[in-house]
C-alpha cells in the first residue's frame, strides 16, 4: 500500500476524549509494526468546525450525551457534525454517549429531549443497565476482530459498561426521518440529510450489521420507572456503512484491538474516497 496520510479527530467537547487519543496512538503503532500500512496518522482534538473540517474520520467519545449535544449546539458544531456523518458519510465511531448521538432514534432522554446527530438506523435506549451501581465490566469474545498477531481470534475483550446504553432495535432504513419512531412518546429522532455524492450514497445503502451482543442482565432496580422488555441478548456493537457504534468503552482499556480494526476500516474509506476523486 502506498504511503498516505489520514487525520482522525476525537470530539473533545467533554468526556473521555484523551483516552481515545491514547488508544489511537497505540493502534497506529501496532499497524506500523505489523507492516500493514505506512500511513502517516495525525490525531487531533476537535472543538471547532475548523478542526472538524481537517478530519478524514471521527470518534465521538464516552461522556454525558446530553452535555455533549448541548455544548455542540452552542459551539456551532451540531450541524457540521451531521454534515460530516450523514452528508459526507465519513467514517465515524461513537462509544457509549457517542453511540447515542449517532443513533437515528433514542429514548429515555432528558425531559426536553436531546439533539441527535444520527447515521445509524437503530433505536438506542439510554442507561439500559441502570445507574452507576449497576455498571460493570465483562470480558467478551468479539468475533468481528478476528485474529491478530498479538491475540488469537476469540481472545476476550474487556468490555466496560458505564451507565451504558444498548441498541434496542434495528430500524428499517427510511428516506427522511424515522417517522414511526418520532410518533412514539418520549422518543427523539435525528434529522435527515442527503448524501453529498455517489460514493456517500453507497455508504447509505449499507444495512445495519450487529457485531456484538451480551447476555441480558437482570436489572437490580428500575430507577427510571420504565418498563423493560425482557430479552435474551442485548446488542452492544453495530456498524452501518461509515458509522460504527459500541455501547461499551474500549478507550478505558489497554487493548487497542478495536481501535486497530477501526483504523483499518478508516484506511479503506480514505482509499475509496481517493480513487473516487481521481476518476
Amino acid at each position, binding site marked *: 500500500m502506498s504511503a498516505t496520510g489520514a487525520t482522525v479527530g476525537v470530539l*473533545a*467537547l*467533554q*468526556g*473521555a*476524549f*484523551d*483516552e481515545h487519543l*491514547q*488508544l489511537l496512538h497505540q493502534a497506529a503503532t501496532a499497524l506500523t509494526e505489523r507492516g500493514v500500512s505506512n500511513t502517516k496518522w495525525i490525531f487531533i482534538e476537535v*472543538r471547532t468546525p475548523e478542526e472538524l473540517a481537517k478530519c478524514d474520520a471521527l470518534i465521538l467519545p*464516552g*461522556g*454525558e450525551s*446530553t*452535555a455533549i449535544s*448541548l*455544548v455542540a449546539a*452552542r*459551539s456551532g458544531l451540531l450541524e457540521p457534525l451531521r454534515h460530516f456523518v450523514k452528508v459526507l458519510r465519513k467514517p465515524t465511531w461513537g462509544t*457509549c*454517549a457517542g453511540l447515542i448521538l449517532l443513533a437515528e432514534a433514542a429514548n*429515555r*432522554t*432528558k*425531559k*426536553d429531549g436531546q439533539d441527535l446527530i444520527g447515521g445509524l438506523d437503530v433505536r438506542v435506549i*439510554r*442507561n439500559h443497565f*441502570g*445507574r*452507576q*451501581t*449497576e*455498571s*460493570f*465490566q*465483562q*470480558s467478551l469474545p468479539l468475533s468481528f476482530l478476528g485474529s491478530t498477531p498479538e491475540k488469537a481470534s476469540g481472545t476476550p475483550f*474487556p468490555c*466496560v459498561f*458505564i*451507565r451504558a446504553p444498548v441498541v434496542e432495535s434495528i430500524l428499517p432504513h427510511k428516506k427522511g426521518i424515522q417517522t414511526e419512531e418520532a410518533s412514539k412518546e418520549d422518543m427523539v429522532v435525528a434529522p435527515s440529510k442527503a448524501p453529498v455524492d455517489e460514493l456517500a450514497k453507497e455508504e447509505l445503502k449499507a444495512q445495519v450489521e450487529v457485531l456484538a451482543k451480551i447476555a441480558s442482565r437482570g436489572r437490580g*432496580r428500575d*430507577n*427510571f*420507572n420504565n418498563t423493560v422488555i425482557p430479552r435474551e441478548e442485548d446488542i452492544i456493537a453495530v456498524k452501518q456503512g461509515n458509522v460504527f457504534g459500541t455501547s461499551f*468503552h474500549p*478507550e*478505558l*482499556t*489497554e*487493548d487497542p484491538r478495536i481501535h486497530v480494526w477501526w483504523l483499518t476500516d478508516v484506511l479503506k474509506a480514505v482509499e475509496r474516497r481517493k480513487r473516487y476523486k481521481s476518476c
Partner: protein
Amino acid sequence: MATQLPTRTTNGNGQNSNDSQDGENSFAVKAGLARMLKGGVIMDVVNAEQARIAEEAGAVAVMALERVPADIRAQGGVARMSDPSMIKEIMEAVTIPVMAKARIGHFVECQILEALGVDYIDESEVLTPADATHHVSKSPFRCPFVCGCRNLGEALRRISEGAAMIRTKGEAGTGDVIEAVRHMRTVNSEIAKAKGMSEEELRVYAKEIGCDYGLLKETAGLGRLPVVNFAAGGVATPADAALMMQLGCDGVFVGSGIFKSGNPEKRARAIVQAVTHFRDPKVLMEISQGLGEAMVGINCGDMGEGERLAKRGW
C-alpha cells in the same frame, strides 16, 4: 498544563484497570465514570427544578443536597446527609448522574446513599464530620466515591481508602477561588517535587506527607494524580472555571456559585462553555458578558480559622 491520565492507572491496592477485573466493583468501572465526567461541570442543586436547570445548561452531573454551602455557612448547625426522598426526587427529574454528600467518616450515611442508588458519593468536609479520626473505607462499596484534598498527601490517602475521584477542597460557599487555586497549586508542586526524587527520597517523602509509598511512586511516574481530579470550593465565574482548568484540573464542581447568582441559567451555561473552551480567551470573553450579578461571596482572607471548612478531614 493538563497532563494525560493513562488508561492504566491503579489506586495502589493492586486494584488495577481491567486485568481480569470482571464484575461490578472493579476500580476501572468506578474511576471510569469519573473519566466520563471530565471536561464537564458538576452543579450543586437543592431540588428537582434546579436539577433540571443544571441539566439543560449542560451539567455532566448534579450534586443533590438540602442546603448549598453558602447557606450551611450562614445558618450554621450540624449539616448532615440530605433526606433520601429529596435526593430521589432529583434522581427522577434528570437523566445525568446524581451525586450526594455523606459526612466524613459516616459510613452508614454512605450505605444509605448506596442503597438509594446515587451514582457517586462525596465524603465531604462541607457537612459536619462524624468521625474525628477515620475516613470511610471506600473500596468495599459498589458506589464510587469522590473526596476533597488540600495537598498531595491528603489526595493519596483518600485514593488508598478507595476514592475513585478527587477534587480540591477550596473553600466551599465563599465564591472566593483563592483556596481552590492554593490547593491545586500545592498538589501540582508536590507532584513535581516527587517526580524529581530517587526511590530512597520517595520513601522518606511518603512518610513525610503520610501516604502509601507505592501510590506516591505511581503518581510521581505519571506526573499527575492517578485518578480524575476536579476543582471545587469557590468557583463563581466562567473565568474561575477556566482558571482551574488551565491549572490542570479535569473538570469543575460549582456549588453556591450558580444558584446564588442573579441569573442561574445563563451563568450555568457560560461555565459549561468555559470548561470546554478553557484555552480560548475569545470564547471566554464572549460568554463572560452580561451574566448578571455573581454570588456576593465571602473574602477568605477575612475569615476566622474556625469558619474554614477545608480544615475538616486530614
